[in-house]
């Protein structure tokens, strides 16, 4: 069981890296692709990866709705429009750096927002790693970061102050030992030790909890606390829909249209009479 759990965690983190990496990569490709149709296709890939990320944090409903709404509806319209426009490829290649100032400014703004949010801890983070074994990826990352930084430092020392090299190397050795010690103690401090206390009454929390699905929970929240926002959002959508219909619906006078209702309600005997009289 322990082994399966560990494998699962490891797989989750690998999947997270895959999804996030692919999303970033295809996000870059959206703006780098020469052909606008490719851009839209990469955008769809971004959406798919984002819904994969949502699945990883157990938001299954949101992931599916994301796919249905963004990929199934909005991106299809994008693709439709882009395919029909028949843009010449040469037009786009004129100057890529022209939009850099404005685009860069917006990018920096978003980055700043994200950094601010990271400080405030918007979502309460639940730590999974209570069973005391460092996930494989984290382990690797830790050592890679350590060795990369220390290599840079040692190189810098070699160039600037070569005479302090022995002391720096010994310092590096102690640091490495400290890191190894930390990792080792972390992995030896397992959940098993925590259970070894005798005479403790455990509450079986899973039995006291009520099990619901994401959809139920969401419904309970959206239709009670956030009802006003929900209705407002739908009214806004309705208004925009009506606006689009009003803009596009002008009936041409000379256009012949099929009046299905009239056709169906026409009386057969009267039709014949009309022709007879003529």
């Amino acid at each position, binding site marked *: 069981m322990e*082994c*399966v759990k560990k494998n699962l965690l490891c797989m989750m983190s690998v999947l997270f890296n895959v999804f996030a990496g692919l999303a970033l990569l295809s996000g870059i490709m959206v703006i780098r692709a020469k052909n606008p149709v490719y851009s839209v296709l990469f955008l769809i890939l971004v959406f798919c990866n984002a819904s994969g990320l949502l699945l990883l944090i157990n938001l*299954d*409903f949101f992931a*599916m709705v994301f796919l*249905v709404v963004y990929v*199934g*509806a909005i991106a299809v319209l994008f693709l439709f429009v882009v395919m029909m426009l028949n843009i010449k490829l040469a037009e786009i290649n004129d100057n890529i750096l022209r939009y850099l100032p404005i685009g860069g400014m917006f990018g920096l703004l978003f980055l700043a927002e994200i950094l601010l949010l990271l400080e405030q801890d918007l979502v309460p983070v639940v730590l999974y790693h209570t069973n005391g074994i460092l996930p494989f990826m984290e382990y690797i990352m830790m050592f890679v970061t350590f060795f990369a930084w220390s290599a840079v430092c040692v190189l810098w020392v070699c160039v600037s102050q070569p005479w302090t090299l022995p002391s720096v190397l010994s310092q590096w050795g102690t640091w490495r030992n400290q890191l190894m010690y930390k990792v080792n103690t972390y992995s030896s401090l397992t959940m098993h030790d925590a259970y070894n206390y005798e005479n403790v009454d455990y509450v079986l929390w899973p039995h006291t909890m009520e099990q619901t*699905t994401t959809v139920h929970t969401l419904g309970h929240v959206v239709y009670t606390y956030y009802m006003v926002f929900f209705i407002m959002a739908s009214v806004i959508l309705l208004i925009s829909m009506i606006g689009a219909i009003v803009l596009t619906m002008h009936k041409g006078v000379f256009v012949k249209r099929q009046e299905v209702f009239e056709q169906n309600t026409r009386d057969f005997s009267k039709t014949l009479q009309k022709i007879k009289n003529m």
Partner: protein
Amino acid sequence: MLFFLLSIIAKILGIVVPLLVAVAYLTLAERKVMASMQRRKGPNVVGFFGILQPLADGLKLLIKEPVLPSSANTVVFLAAPVLTFLLALIAWAVIPFGEGMVLCDLDVGMLYIFAVSSLGVYGVIMAGWSSNSKYAFLGALRSTAQMVSYEVSLGLIIITVLVCVGSLNLSDIVLAQQDVWFAVPLFPLLLLFFISCLAETNRAPFDLPEAEAELVAGYNVEYSSMGFALFFLGEYANMIMMSVLCVILFLGGWLPPLSLTILYWIPGSMWLGLKTILFLFLYIWVRAAFPRYRYDQLMRLGWKVFLPLSLAWVLFVAGVLVAFDILPS
């Protein structure tokens, strides 16, 4: 871990291989049934009564030369049939063939199927665009517009059923019909759903993308050999998928028609299969019986008839459930 992986692969093969065989014999059934409706014999040369005909067709498609149009966009051109086929297969992951006989019992199974079927548009539109041919492009545009339009009413009908069930899980949907199949109280919705399924899978009388008189063969004109075969397999797998969906939503999935012990001796997957065959026969029957719709009539039917009607049904059913206080908890 290895055992786990192997068991998953075995399960997937256990779904996909029978599906492909079903697709193969669905084509034969289509030809045979339509032949008898038109007083012909249909394929009867290869094997007894033409029973090996689909295999011969498959072999022919496999060994034909794959032709790549020189002006086509190669990457997208090759990706489109693969995507279509892939999407037709992965939707089967959440279909319950019996009590607990399901590859992945998702909580949001219905939504998953809906999402996958709405992704199916991309195979078509990518094929049409990348072929760089007017016929293919027009066929793809028609097909896409049609699929997107009818998806709306499909979604609303599914919502109506979900309101009666109180869960998005497909097994729960089937188990909610233990007392009475939803086909009885919601019969008009079954009709609407079946017609929408016809349009969603681009089948007659809504097979406008393939209108052979106007657009040679729709979005897949430029495809030959295996590319065409993948589109074909995807289309027919989608047909079976939609029939299974009709059965699960309205005809009680794997449940026998009457709650008798004798009927429970027949395995549930058999019942599911029988009911699915009923709908597939309807598909073929409709194709043999009805002429093709005109495109504006098709769009009118989708947006001006089916959409208001299914929306009204959502409100009506939800209203009745609330008024009599029989909403499923």
